[in-house]
């Protein structure tokens, strides 16, 4: 490590949570921890965001659940998961071995369930923040149904806020014309940060069978295809609030991540790219450090929102 390296400061705060670097893995793309642990040292990640969890175990959707499209993939996993207590019992002991903040992505089909799952995870030792999923396009109730109306979104945020002292991070739906309003509501509800974007509602049809490829009919588009859309929304959301923004959507390399950061994101999450190359989060961290060196930026926080608009 050179002198200048010793001075590079990649740390960033998300509410009271201090991350050693700004690069997380996005919910649903890195499992619950063990899946990639042989390849990627979890302690090197800014944070580990686990797959969406509701109060009770959940089956998710019938397969096929995923289909590849140009520049991305459409998934309709449907939030399969072991439930809040199942997660705590099965994965927390494993995750505790690593020096990494654990952020749990939570959802429910009712307002009450959002509160209950928050309370269960709040009581568990080893959970460091909650990301509220009000933007999943792949479940009939819950998810996006809450996230595209400012009032219902606010209700969920308040309910979760009431049930935990952990940092609360609503994950916003990209599927609205006024993302700033949702960002502001999050700030007003006392949330510690916001994250965006979730996948874009999408559909793929098999023209030979004349059926949707996904059994769920619709799914969510992720990957490089959505990156320019995500940058625009992150830029707009970050301008609307003072709480930190965690950005995701199509990050494949450090350059994609830095676009988000210049647009105002305090941290980023790598999603679909993990399937392409599980080392992506680590190469993104290194790439951000390289960029800082090249541009003589010592503190990561000086990059946040450093966009010069015409």
């Amino acid at each position, binding site marked *: 490590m050179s002198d200048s390296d010793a001075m590079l400061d990649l740390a960033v705060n998300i509410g009271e949570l201090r991350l050693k670097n700004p690069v997380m893995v996005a919910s649903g793309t890195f499992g619950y921890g063990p899946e990639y642990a042989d390849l990627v040292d979890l302690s090197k990640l800014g944070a580990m965001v686990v797959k969406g969890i509701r109060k009770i175990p959940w089956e998710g959707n019938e*397969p096929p659940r995923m289909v590849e499209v140009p520049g991305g993939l459409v998934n309709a996993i449907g939030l*399969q998961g072991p439930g809040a207590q199942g997660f705590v019992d099965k994965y927390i002991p494993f995750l505790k071995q690593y020096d990494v903040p654990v952020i749990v992505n939570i959802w429910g089909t009712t307002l009450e369930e959002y509160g209950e799952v928050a309370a269960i995870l709040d009581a568990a030792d080893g959970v460091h923040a909650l990301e509220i999923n009000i933007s999943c396009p792949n479940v009939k109730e819950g998810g996006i149904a809450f996230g595209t109306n400012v009032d219902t979104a606010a209700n969920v945020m308040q309910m979760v806020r009431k049930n935990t002292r952990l940092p609360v991070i609503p994950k916003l739906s990209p599927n609205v014309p006024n993302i700033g309003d949702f960002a502001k509501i999050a700030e007003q509800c006392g949330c510690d940060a916001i994250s965006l974007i979730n996948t874009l509602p999408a559909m793929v049809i098999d023209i030979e069978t004349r059926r949707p490829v996904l059994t769920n009919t619709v799914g969510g588009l992720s990957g490089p295809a959505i990156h320019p859309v995500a940058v625009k929304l992150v830029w707009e959301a970050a301008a609307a609030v003072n709480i930190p923004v965690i950005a995701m959507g199509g990050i494949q390399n450090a350059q994609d991540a830095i676009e988000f950061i210049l647009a105002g994101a305090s941290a980023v999450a790598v999603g679909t790219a993990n*399937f392409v*190359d599980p080392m992506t989060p680590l190469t993104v961290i290194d790439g951000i450090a390289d960029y800082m060196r090249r541009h003589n930026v010592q503190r990561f926080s000086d990059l946040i929102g450093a966009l010069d608009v015409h």
Partner: protein
Amino acid sequence: MAVSLVRSHSEKQAGYRELVLEAPTIAPLVRPGQFVHLRIPRLEHRLLRRPFSIFMADQDTLTILYKSVGTGTQLLTQVEQGEAVSLLGPLGNGFPEPNNDHIPLLIAGGYGVAPLYLLASRMARTGVLFVGGRTRTDILCDDEFEALGWDVQIATEDGSRGIQGLVTSALDAWAANNAGAEPAELFACGPDGMLRAVGERAITHNWKGWLSLDKHMGCGMGACLACVQRIRQPDGSIEWERVCKDGPIFEAREIVWEQENEDNHE
């Protein structure tokens, strides 16, 4: 995870190619039935890796045997000797240790011979390979199995090689001739329809039937939950399991096949 250099790449027979990769960190670990998840060079407009069974493995190299069927596998044919290919593997559970008291029956459809050949080459005893396909050019590796001393029985749908019909007809004929002679253990890889039919035979004859499932995959690592299959648990409950991580090999009795869309399988 490794970056492997292509040691050789050649056509095996019409439509099928053999790709030999230098993978000294992966190859020695391979168990028969495992697969690698391969990023296809120059497949820039598609994101996902492609899974391929391991056909051969020694200390330094591993070989896959593949059929060109779509965008990715077509581009794969263009990979040249000396090129670098990114690999994840070995992945999946692999076949269990064969029971040496039972005669092994291997049932292969198309490229399904690949994992079965690795299995056969490491078995303590020989048995019978039933290999089927649409037409004669889909019959692969019969020579290799014969060289190992296996009895090879061929079936083609168009009758252009071996008996005309499905590979399960050949299996049924064998079972009828060998009724009760010796207990058998089945190992099969091929399309879902074939696996299902093989599984039914396993249950009927009260043999173990190890079936290697072929599901579209996302991560290949157990993380994305794209590849799930309903599996009967020891306690009788039914749970999703991940074909990439908990499979691809399941025992015939465990698999809960879909009721509907039976004909919709590939």
